[in-house]
């Protein structure tokens, strides 16, 4: 397939970027598929910025398929988590990300794996895009030893390299993210930290404290507000005196982005990363997005918004459908190919769920471990003075 693409590319070399709308749909064979196309994306609203991200972006077939695969994997993984929760195999808190996939995937596409990222509790999608397997995520949700946190953290406490969770206290992740950015600046490796928070968290005081210090010290921090219109059961109008979240960094430049379009998110993230990577200071992005599920699995999500609204977003703005339609109508992918990818993903999720339901729980010997790092083993008091347990780093 690679060779065929090279042939096609060579044939088309010398020509300008292909205008997506003028490509003729031909017979279905990979040789006829378009290797890349240029797409118009929505202009961003800007705050204290003279210019914003480009309104046109080039998408390669390879990237497109990768974004599709990643978004669809997150979608299916979340729906599987929903199922497992209803079967009571997942317990406690479970905040699902379906509907918002373009944000996690677009952001990851705009930064490097060596950059850093931190978010709040709606975290399964980011855990995946930051490199943790579906298997380890689902097994953490089911509380098994094969989970990414060995079963000890649960839904909101998943971590990976350059990924700092997974935070249960609303807003707390924002100063933490600014701190990671401080470390980036300190270690001078031109890395940035993406610090995410929601429309509900946007009213937390500690966020403004973090804004001030990040701006004062020019920290390489990309603050991103994922505005999905509702903070638990409270709509943005009822919680915020100003719903222009991209302006609320005040002295920090901001942009408001269509968070349902993975290409818009990617372009904006690239722009933001360029801005703050080389010493200009922090920048703020507001992603306008939507969650299909309620706030958590214990919220049906229809007491404070209408089913019509949810249906409308699904029908008109679903991020996965949008990308798929774009690629197919520009002959960048075939329906069969997409179906094959879907089938592969379904299989991957099923296998991961199998693992997550059959892997054993963490052993009792692990109960008191991981209290301190790099420390000598010590005794931990159990439920009574006669029960002495052991803690190993």
């Amino acid at each position, binding site marked *: 397939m690679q060779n065929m693409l090279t042939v096609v590319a060579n044939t088309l070399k010398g020509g300008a970027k292909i205008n997506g709308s003028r490509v003729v749909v031909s017979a279905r064979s990979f040789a006829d598929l378009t290797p890349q196309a240029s797409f118009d994306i929505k202009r961003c609203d800007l705050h204290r910025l003279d210019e914003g991200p480009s309104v046109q972006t080039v998408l390669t077939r390879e990237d497109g398929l990768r974004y599709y695969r990643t978004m669809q994997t997150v979608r299916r993984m979340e729906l599987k988590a929903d199922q497992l929760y209803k079967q009571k195999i997942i317990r406690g808190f479970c905040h699902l990300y379906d509907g918002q996939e373009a944000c996690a995937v677009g952001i990851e596409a705009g930064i490097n794996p060596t950059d850093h990222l931190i978010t709040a509790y709606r975290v399964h999608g980011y855990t995946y895009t930051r490199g943790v397997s579906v298997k380890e995520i689902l097994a953490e949700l089911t*509380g098994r030893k094969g989970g990414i946190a060995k079963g000890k953290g649960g*839904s909101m406490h998943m971590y990976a390299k350059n990924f700092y969770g997974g935070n249960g206290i609303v807003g707390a992740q924002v100063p933490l993210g600014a701190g990671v950015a401080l470390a980036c600046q300190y270690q001078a490796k031109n890395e940035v930290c993406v610090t995410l928070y929601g429309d509900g968290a946007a009213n937390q005081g500690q966020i403004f404290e973090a804004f001030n210090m990040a701006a004062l010290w020019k920290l390489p921090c990309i603050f991103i507000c994922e505005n999905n219109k509702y903070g638990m059961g409270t709509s943005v109008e009822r919680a915020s005196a100003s719903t222009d979240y991209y302006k609320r960094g005040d002295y920090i430049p901001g942009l408001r982005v269509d968070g349902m379009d993975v290409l818009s998110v990617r372009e904006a993230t690239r722009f933001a990363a360029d801005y703050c990577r080389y010493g200009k200071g922090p920048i703020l992005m507001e992603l306008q997005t939507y969650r299909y599920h309620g706030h958590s699995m214990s919220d049906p999500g229809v007491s404070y918004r209408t089913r019509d609204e949810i249906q409308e977003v699904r029908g008109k703005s679903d991020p996965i459908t949008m990308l798929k339609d774009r690629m197919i109508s520009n002959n960048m992918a075939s329906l069969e190919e997409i179906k094959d990818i879907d089938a592969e993903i379904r299989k991957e999720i099923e296998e991961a769920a199998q693992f997550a339901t059959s892997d054993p729980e963490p052993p009792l010997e692990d109960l008191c471990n991981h209290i301190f790092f790099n420390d000598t083993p010590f005794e931990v008091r159990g439920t009574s003075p*006669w029960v002495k347990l052991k803690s190993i780093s």
Partner: protein
Amino acid sequence: MHNSLDPRQRTQSNMAYLRSILRSGKNAVPAVLRREFHRTLQAAMQVTVRDAIKEAMDEELERDERVFLLGEEVALFEGAYKVTRGLWKKYGDKRIIDTPIAEIGFTGIAVGAAMAGLRPVVEYMSFNFSMQSVDHIINSAAKTYYMSGGLQPVSIVFRGPNGAAPGVAAQHAQCFAAWYGHVPGLKVVSPWSAEDAKGLLKSAIRDDNPVVFLENEIMYGVPFEMSEESQSKDFLIPIGKAKIERKGNHVTLVSHSHVVSRCMDAAAVLAKDGIECEVINLRTIRPMDMEAIETSVLKTKHLITVEGGWPQFGVGGEILARIMEGPGFGYLNAPAVRVTGVDIPMPYAKLLEENTLPQIKDIVFSVKKMLNV
């Protein structure tokens, strides 16, 4: 009882009092209880802890115009745990206020309103989130009456679920009884039953001082029988008085909140082996009813405190210290002991979580170990 006497005299007179009760017949106390039970049976009803809390707030909102409720999702959403269901529909925006997610901000606002004469009830979706607000609870509410030399009281209630709940993991499962219990100027209440919840919350709202009211999510849905008396709009339980939930002669178990249920279950198990536990439901953490504990220890000579919180510097630690310093120590036949949560952050996996809180078998084991059986 005879509070004006010095400790030794008080002990002796309490002993005499106890002896007189016991002398009146082994079955005197149970018979009295039985008679009361039959009398109230017709009018008693089953009420969940959640509904009892709501009833308390409803009645106090109706009784006093100055009382109002604020917190996240308390109005339209009817409460994250549905405790405030129906209140916003009944009382409207002025009395039931939805706040943004800004704990220290709205706590400060509530304390300010209390300083100016209103009587706010602040709901925390979890006391774990109150950690953000601790500065205002302590520095603006607890200490102010003292710092002002008696000029500025702060009549406010901080309430919400505290401690463990199934599957909520480390950041959402901490028990704050010891943290708040540490602070002079605060009253700290930890109800167990529906009756506790209703009577104590009403007292808390009517109290002119800052009260931290520690509920528990596990107990919200548990129904209890509420006597006709406890259904009255003026039913109050005094803050600072413990309740003996189960009488016994062999060992005193002192507990609070959802763990009282485990103590009652453990007592039932031990009764089969002929060991009769006296279960004390503390009801209030500060001021603590040491008299009730000492009176019980005089009788049983064995003391075990049982709590869900961490052992170090905990509620049990305080009780044991006071027993050491007071008359109770002289009556113990064995060193008093604490049964507590394990000294680790709360794990998520079910097997680990279950082994982090004191189970019935842990209480039974501790009793038998202490009694050498």
